[in-house]
């Protein structure tokens, strides 16, 4: 009987020790695996959207991702695939994406789940979409430039030859009659006008004279 009790005590001690070692090991593993990584919250609508950063899959919710630049692809059958270059760092640690429906089923799904899109829009108001982060550093507008039609032309240049000082300047060539139309075109491409410096031909601000 006494031997039995001793054996049980030994067993309990071994189990406790094993559990303690496993817990410590798990904590150390977590610390190492998460070391140097940014706690990043990913919000996807629909929730089962497949999101990859440089090919690696990530799920909805909290993830630990190394800081850096990535090629982001978000896709789901029936929805338009979303791609963009993004930067993950301590200041930019949220990814919020709501896919646009393409198929009839997807459109029906969206109309029944507008609440989820509204919630995402509210989240995006502070974090903005990933496309809103420091566009001047990414220069995605260059993909649309130069652009010319019979009313105006929009181009770009850099205002410094040094790579570290480079700043994009959007150039607009047109008459006074169509300047607002040229700016509207930039908005139609999905860019925020406030993110750029501009050089507008034959323009003098009368309020600065």
């Amino acid at each position, binding site marked *: 009987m006494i031997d039995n009790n001793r*054996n*049980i005590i030994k*067993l*309990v001690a071994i*189990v*406790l020790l094993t*559990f303690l070692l496993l*817990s410590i090991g798990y904590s150390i593993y977590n610390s190492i695996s998460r070391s140097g990584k940014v*706690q990043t*919250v990913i*919000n996807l609508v629909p929730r089962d959207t497949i999101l990859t950063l440089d090919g690696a899959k990530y799920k909805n*919710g*909290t993830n630990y991702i190394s800081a850096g630049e990535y090629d982001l692809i978000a896709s789901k059958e029936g929805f338009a695939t979303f791609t963009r270059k993004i930067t993950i760092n301590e200041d930019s640690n*949220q990814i919020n994406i709501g896919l646009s429906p393409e198929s009839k089923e997807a459109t029906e799904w969206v109309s029944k789940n507008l*609440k*989820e899109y509204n*919630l995402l829009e*509210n*989240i995006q*108001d*502070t*974090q903005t979409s990933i496309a809103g982060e420091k566009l001047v550093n990414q220069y995605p507008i260059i993909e649309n430039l130069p652009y010319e039609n019979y009313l105006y032309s929009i181009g770009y240049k850099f205002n410094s030859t040094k790579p570290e000082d480079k700043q994009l300047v959007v150039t607009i060539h047109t008459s*006074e*009659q*169509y*300047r*607002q139309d040229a*700016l*509207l075109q930039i*908005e139609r491409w999905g860019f*925020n*006008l*406030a*993110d*750029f*410096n*501009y050089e*507008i031909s034959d*323009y003098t*601000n*009368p*309020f*600065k004279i």
Partner: protein
Amino acid sequence: MKKKIIILLIILALLVGASFFLRYILSFKNIDFTLSSNTSSLAIFNSKNVEVENINSNQSIKLQTGNYVLIPEGNKISSDAINLLITKDEIINIDPDYSNSYLDSILESEKAEVQTILNSKYPNIINSYSIKNYQLFKKGDWCGGLLVNNNSSFNNKKDIFRFVAKKTNGVWDIINYPDLILTSENYPNIPRSVINTINSFKFDY
């Protein structure tokens, strides 16, 4: 032997359960909410869009780590959602801007003063322009709009200028040269939301 195995399994199960329970308990953080005098209540939604709390005074509550959306309510304030990411104990001040309806209700009373400031700053040219799309922002201490040339028409469009004014100590002042577009780089002191809204103003002839 069989008895030992059963005991072993029970202990393991208890330990695993205890660790999950501990992890669950530790995931809760103390969040001190301070509501502005205009905020009568604050609804707190988790990432699954489920309301988890509703507070109507300054108080400290426990919330799990994760993403939340806060919806404030009050007479004058905007009910625009506020995003909150909880990772640690912290103090959150809820001080929403005024609602669009309230700002609209006090708009006309401020417009005359802003026009006076424009007249005094640009006496030589301001008479050639009219204020359009005038709007108040934030807590009624920012305003902006368009200056449209009086001789402008659909077939003869003139430049449209955007201006921003700030009310400090009860006095309005124009804080930028009215310009075609407001940029964050040129006007880092103007809130981004104000810049974006004024840049989005369109004038229909």
